[in-house]
């Protein structure tokens, strides 16, 4: 910034401005005269140290743009230039041209009323650049309280101001502004978003803790609370597991690929089912504790446990997961997810046929059961189901698909020879 000033001035002075004619007769518009002065006193923006003399030296040509030989064209197509040259300036566009001509000083707008008039005109022109230019000037020349008060009734200017603060990364000003406008939910979300920029997990955790009290909507408030709790748990689990890495069997056999910090809840649950299965509910790292703390749905819980235990080929755990005792002590397999999906997951984890078979037989829809059984070569299920359906034809067809003289071939033959069965076909 220091000694580049002359260059800057050169730049601004040599750069292009659009010429236009003033309508001097127009005196009902109070700022017009001032504006004219402003146009003639071109300054970069609001550099405080620019005195009046400096600003007068700028070249200005009153010639229309179309005949301006060395002014870079700013119009899209040459055809469009002609109209601009003949363009008669009306009141509302005057101030805007002022800025668009790249040469402007707002110093002449001293009173609040004038400043707001300037802003309204800028907004009226709809050009984001113009509005932003005016807002930067207002930001420097008005107190925060007054500016946000004035912006309350100027929705469009306000949006631009918010956008400007966001772009410039002026987080603090933005939060203050939203607060003073009563847009507390937006403010809360904006503050929450900041956590993404914090790398250190302990600091992030503390930041999230501070966020809990912010005026979120009730649903979001509970999510943010959960987010904090999750990270808090993850930090504890991570510290413990780092210690365990070289000692505990499961970690040695299946080394951790990444830290659990900042992972979603379901990933954390999976991790816990993988490394901490069977721990009592009292420990933070136990699946049961995670399930109840974060109110994980039964479906999600089952899927996650199944995925993790199947990955480890712990078929016994899988079996226990679905086993429910009823009042009479009988055990029965139950699942909140369809057994066809259980089969799918088991199969993807290369479960042996004996394990698969058990779950295929539990699939409710007969057609689906047969198709899965055929796909995974669970011959007994296919044969028994056709037998139950008394479907001789299908059984004969299936016999053609199995190996000759194999146990299943013989089983089918026995059934077909059985005269006790009343086949439907």
């Amino acid at each position, binding site marked *: *910034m220091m000694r580049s000033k002359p260059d*800057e001035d050169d730049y601004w002075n040599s750069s292009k401005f659009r010429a236009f004619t003033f309508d001097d007769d127009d005196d009902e518009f109070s700022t017009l005269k001032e504006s004219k002065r402003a146009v003639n006193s071109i300054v970069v923006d609001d550099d405080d140290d620019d005195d009046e003399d400096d600003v007068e030296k700028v070249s200005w040509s009153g010639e229309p743009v179309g005949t301006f030989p060395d002014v870079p064209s700013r119009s899209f*197509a040459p*055809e469009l230039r002609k109209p601009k040259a003949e363009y*008669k300036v009306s009141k509302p566009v005057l101030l805007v041209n002022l800025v668009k001509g790249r040469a402007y000083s707002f110093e002449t707008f001293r009173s609040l009323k004038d400043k707001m008039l300037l802003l309204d005109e800028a907004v009226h022109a709809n050009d984001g*650049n113009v509005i932003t230019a005016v807002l930067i000037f207002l930001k420097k020349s008005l107190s925060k309280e007054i500016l946000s008060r004035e912006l309350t009734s100027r929705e469009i200017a306000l*949006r631009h101001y918010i956008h400007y603060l966001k772009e410039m990364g002026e987080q603090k000003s933005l939060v203050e502004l939203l607060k003073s406008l009563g847009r507390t939910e937006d403010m809360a979300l904006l503050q929450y978003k900041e956590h993404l920029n914090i790398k250190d997990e302990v600091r992030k955790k503390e930041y999230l803790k501070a966020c809990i009290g912010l005026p979120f909507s009730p649903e979001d408030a509970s999510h*943010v609370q959960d987010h904090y709790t999750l990270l808090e748990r993850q930090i504890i689990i991570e510290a413990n597991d780092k210690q365990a890495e070289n000692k505990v069997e499961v970690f040695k056999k299946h080394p951790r690929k990444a830290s659990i910090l900042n992972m979603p*809840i379901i990933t954390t649950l999976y991790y816990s089912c993988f490394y901490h299965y069977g721990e009592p509910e009292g420990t933070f790292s136990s699946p049961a504790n995670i399930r109840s703390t974060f109110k994980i749905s039964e479906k999600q819980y089952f899927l996650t446990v199944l995925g993790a235990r199947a990955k480890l080929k712990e078929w016994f755990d899988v079996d226990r997961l679905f086993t429910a005792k009823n009042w009479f002590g009988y055990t029965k397999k139950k699942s909140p997810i369809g057994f066809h999906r259980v089969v799918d997951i088991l199969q993807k984890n290369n479960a042996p046929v004996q394990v698969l078979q058990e779950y295929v037989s539990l699939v409710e829809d007969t057609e689906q059961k047969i198709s899965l059984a055929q796909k995974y070569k669970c011959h007994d299920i296919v044969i028994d189901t056709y037998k139950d359906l008394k479907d001789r034809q299908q059984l004969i067809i299936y016999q053609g698909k199995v190996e000759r003289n194999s146990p299943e071939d013989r089983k089918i033959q026995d059934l077909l020879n059985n005269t006790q069965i009343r086949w439907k076909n």
Partner: protein
Amino acid sequence: MKRRLAQYSTRTHDFEKHDHRSRDPPVCHMILVSEGRKMAAHLSYGRVNLNILREAARKELREFLDKCAGSKAIVWDEYLTGPFGLIAQYSLLKEHEVEKMFTLKPGRLPAADVKNIIFFVRPKLELMDIIADNVASEDKLRTPRDFHVLFVPRRSLLCEQRLKEKGVLGSLINVDEYILDLIPYDGDLLSMESESAFRECYLENDQTSLYHTAKGLMTLQALYGTIPQIFGKGECARHVANMMLRMKREFAGCQTQILPVFDTLLLLDRNVDLLTPLATQLTYEGLIDEIYSINNGYVKLPPEKFAQKKQGEGEKDLPTEPKKLQLNSAEELYAEIRDKNFNAVGAALSKKAKIISAAFEERHNAKTVGEIKQFVSQLPHMQAARTSLANHTSVAELIKDITTSDAFFDNLTVEQEFMTGVDTDKANTYIEDCIARKDPLIKILRLVCMQSVCNNGLKQKVLDFYKREILQTYGFQHILTLNNLEKAGLLKLQTATRNNYPTIRKTLKLWMEDANEQNPNDISYVYSGYAPLSVRLTQLLARPGWRSIEEVLKMLPGPHFEERQQLPSGLHKKRQQGENRITLVFFLGGVTYAEIAALRFLSQMEDGGTEYVIATTKLINGTSFIKSLMERLEVPP
């Protein structure tokens, strides 16, 4: 591609975007370089010659280049190379002494013995920091080079301020803007390629892009004459029309003396029809975009299916670079099949194959020297046709692998259930399963938003359920994205006691049970049953007029209106007997390829009476649409 028609297959392809981006090369090998001197003839094929617009843009570019006298190197903001490729090829730049081109990145600029270095950049603050770094790292011992910045599509005060703060503004000889509002993409298609227009308008309430839209429309009117009739639906449409009318008043007295080319302008807000972009497009071009994403008229495809089989060679080398194809109506075959329902593409391709092989067979019939000469003269055309056929057969195979997968089928089934109003008020098991499977988040959001739109908002219990599942599975930081979707109206709580979507669907006939995919008789073929709301509104405007659907229009967000622009006497168009009207449909916030296909279908309809030219802020699909609304979560470096 209807539920009942789709084949059941055991293949499991995930229906998601395949990303085949290669790493940035140090030197900018862009579209411009590879295209050579190809003319943009396809732009003048349509009813309206869009080449005029392109020529105007080229002229502007040449003028800027000539302003920086002497040899030059261009440093490209990579994002711009695509849109620029549609305006100018390398040859144009070369004629104006552009000797080298680089990709913009931090550090010292490569050595190049040129007088001028020109930065072609979007007005983005982070790019200003790179420019500042480049300029500051310049070797002081060498002969100094002149620096220029060209902002595309507009200069920005904030950016210039940033350059000033970094102390480099003074070292720049020229800071200018290249106003590229409407870029001609095809004979009937213009796009501003402003990726964030929808987000700005509906989320951030920043209407700057609408101002640029109005400006772009003024440019268009300067080249193609004043458009006498303006219709519109939606808040943004109203806003754009107001700005246009005011700009016209301000330019009063300098009317362009051009006979109007367009009869009507229809401005449509994207938020009038949020459903259409969420649905999976089922036209050929739409599916290419859904699966591989089309950028600036190009698509990058996995190379395996494009391996060249050379005669006499047993082993073929498998290419590793993605296959890049240009897609526009200059290619005869593509123009023919792009807008067809994908289920009709196979038949079209095999028909074409027969024609081509028959043409090659002709050589046996060529007996006389004259006949042989005739045959030989057609050879280049025939060979091009054969290459084109081979390419599109490969593309169709790639797409078919996906459309015949279970994942695609299941997803489509749920979409169609929502669109027909089946169980939209309950939590959907398929969505729940997709979350449990950790399918891409965008896919989930697309479906949930679709359900919300088709149910005029979700019940509290359902909304809470989806939100919890999403946050638990994908991470809490997505609270921000969910809030964005709510603000944009894509996801909402049902407040009205009555769901008005069924009424809208029935009145506008948005669902056609027997959509004909092979020989369509209605626009609904583009989504195999669903007729895009936006295009239905366009169709009804032409005939019988919006007065007949006042009630439904009131149910859709924003005002609808009609304005007339006075024409200077003598410029009133005298339409020939049987001559079609031309309507420019402007989609504010984006348009999908399937919607474009539907409009082209209407243009081609016999005694339709209206032909359409399409303009938009951005070409979108459900994925890019949702993505534009997601909160940027990556931590800045």
